């Protein structure tokens, strides 16, 4: 469903992602692993359409349609969702406002309100956070849950979780993983992670390993376990 061909991404003059080739399939869970600075977040930004992470070369196709020149909001409307590594706090903007505008006329505001509240309960989000400035004063785990909440309501085809497990305590991680597991039907997940923690709760169909901007290895769930035990260097050597 998402096909990357010969993708290279430069930030400034530096090439961060190099000649990336891979096709993500519908309904599968992928883990993208790699050490810090290996290009994982760059991959996420490039797919979501961050203006500073434009494709230098290559093609990016969603369900057969070239999207390399599409704006982030267009990609979102086509079904791509990025859950941020460090969700920014937006003063005076609530998650409800964000969702209401993102959905436009697609959903009745009252219906949306109910849905937000129900989903928040399932994700064990403190109700106060729903009416407060988004991510303002929220803990790491709460921020990630709020991202998860948005993903649930916007109902995308492809969800990219950038470092969903950093700064998150075990309880929150469990809640997130369980929620993800319960909502994965027909969706494609790309779970970007530095550690293996989340993969204890959600089984990836495939594990991709990135090193220095290159896709160096693709394997099954076992690959993640191996990396956890031995570290990147040993597994790759």
């Amino acid at each position, binding site marked *: 469903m998402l096909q990357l061909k010969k993708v290279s991404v430069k930030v400034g003059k530096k090439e961060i992602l190099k000649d990336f080739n891979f096709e993500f399939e519908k309904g599968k869970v992928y883990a993208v692993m790699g050490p810090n600075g290996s290009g994982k977040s760059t991959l996420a930004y490039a797919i979501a359409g961050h203006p*500073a992470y434009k494709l230098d070369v290559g093609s990016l196709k969603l369900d057969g349609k070239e999207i390399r020149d599409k704006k982030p909001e267009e990609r979102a409307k086509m079904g791509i969702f990025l859950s941020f590594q460090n969700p920014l706090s937006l003063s005076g903007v609530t998650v409800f406002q964000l969702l209401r*505008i993102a959905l436009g006329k697609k959903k009745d505001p009252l219906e949306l309100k109910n849905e937000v509240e129900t989903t928040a309960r399932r994700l064990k989000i403190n109700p106060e956070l729903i009416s407060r400035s988004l991510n303002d004063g929220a803990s790491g785990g709460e921020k990630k849950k709020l991202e998860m909440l948005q993903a649930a309501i916007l109902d995308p085809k492809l969800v990219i979780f950038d470092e969903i497990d950093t700064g998150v305590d075990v309880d929150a991680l469990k809640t997130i993983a369980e929620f993800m597991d319960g909502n994965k039907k027909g969706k494609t997940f790309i779970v970007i992670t530095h550690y293996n923690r989340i993969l204890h709760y959600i089984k990836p169909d495939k594990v991709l390993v990135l090193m220095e901007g290159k896709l160096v290895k693709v394997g099954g769930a076992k690959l993640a376990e191996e990396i956890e035990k031995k570290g990147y260097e040993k597994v790759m050597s």
Partner: protein
Amino acid sequence: MQQSNLDFEYKFGFSMPQKYTFKSKKGLDEGVVKMISQMKKEPVWMTEFRLKAYGIFKKKPMPDWGADLSKINFDSMYYYIKPTDKQVNSWEDLPAEIKNTYDRIGVPEAEKKFLAGVSAQYESEVVYESINKELNKQGVLFCDMDTGLKKYPHLVKKYFGTLIPPHDNKFAALNSATWSGGSFVYIPKGVKVKMPLQAYFRINAERFGQFERTLIIAEEGAYVHYIEGCTAPIYTTQSLHSAVVEIFVHKNARVRYTTVQNWSNNVYNLVTKRARADENAIMEWVDCNIGSKVTMKYPSVYLYGEGARGEVLSIAYAGKNQHQDAGAKMLHFAPRTSSRIISKSISKAGGRTSYRGLVQIMPGAKKSSVYVSCDALILDEKSRSDTYPYMKIKQNDVSIQHEATVEKLGEEKLFYLTSKGISKSDAEGLLVNGFIDPVVKEIPLEYSIELNRLINLEMSGSVG
């Protein structure tokens, strides 16, 4: 290229055909000043006050600080226009074209729901006025300034021009010489007015300067919230709006004055607003400046009585070709007085905002406290924001807090929102409305909704 607030102009930028019973000649001289006073059949003291003020206006130089005022041509303006012969008391009696104008702004609609009384100003004369029965019963006086002078000359004479004398500044002098319309509000001792008093203002004649004059007196323990909102049609030549607002807040009284200023982008909005707060009195200015070409306005509170409190909450938005030079002035004369200034400004598409504030603690005003917070949001590289905070502290044992931030609307925040499926202009609107939210919360609902909508329109009209 699109105009920055196209949708808004389309909606409100209309002008109705004009029928005037009288229009003064262009320009200002002693004859025009005398004529204005005669037309209004004013007492001699007011004629003399006007003439004296005119003399001061002639002598005073233009301010050599603040915004660029060099394009103002005093000789090309009309200083007095009288649209209809007499005041009317009911909506039905209004001339049809004036009624249409108000229908389009939505006055009667709003009135049904919220208003305790409407004193709507059509050019220099208040033509429509309806005062709620309850206000009358409570002894509240709420009328246009001209009527106030006729009916309550002693009250007017006691207060008028005492807080903002003509020699205060050139534009206060101009207003004092040529004033027409505005509101007169008197709240008797202990009376608390539950509903906000509102006045709608409108300029509807080209090159016509509007010099309204407002006087609010809140006696001991009284409370009133006065709201002033403006929309104006679009014209090609420059227009001047120069108001004077004086407010007297007596012991234990509280006055809140809310402004939503949205003059069209050719209006010079040069306004002097000042309040005097006596012992334990509270004065609050909520000041939103969205429109005009140039605004220079620094609502001030003179804290005369022990324990008095002053507050200014302000929002300024400057788009293309706009300069909002706004701020606040707090003068602490007595012990244990406190003041709070919260200013939020936004500049976009080459617009410029300046925060200009003065906080002064006089000798003897011990144990006073000051809190100033000014935040500026700059939306693009072309736009500009400056801060000019002045503090003159002449007393020890006081508490002063000052915070200032300048933020550029970052690509990261925009990307965060656009990646969730929100267009760039909607994302800007959300962020800007979020930025001003702490102040908007203080504004009555119908105004805050209008303000949020205005901001969204401003954002959507942008290039790119």
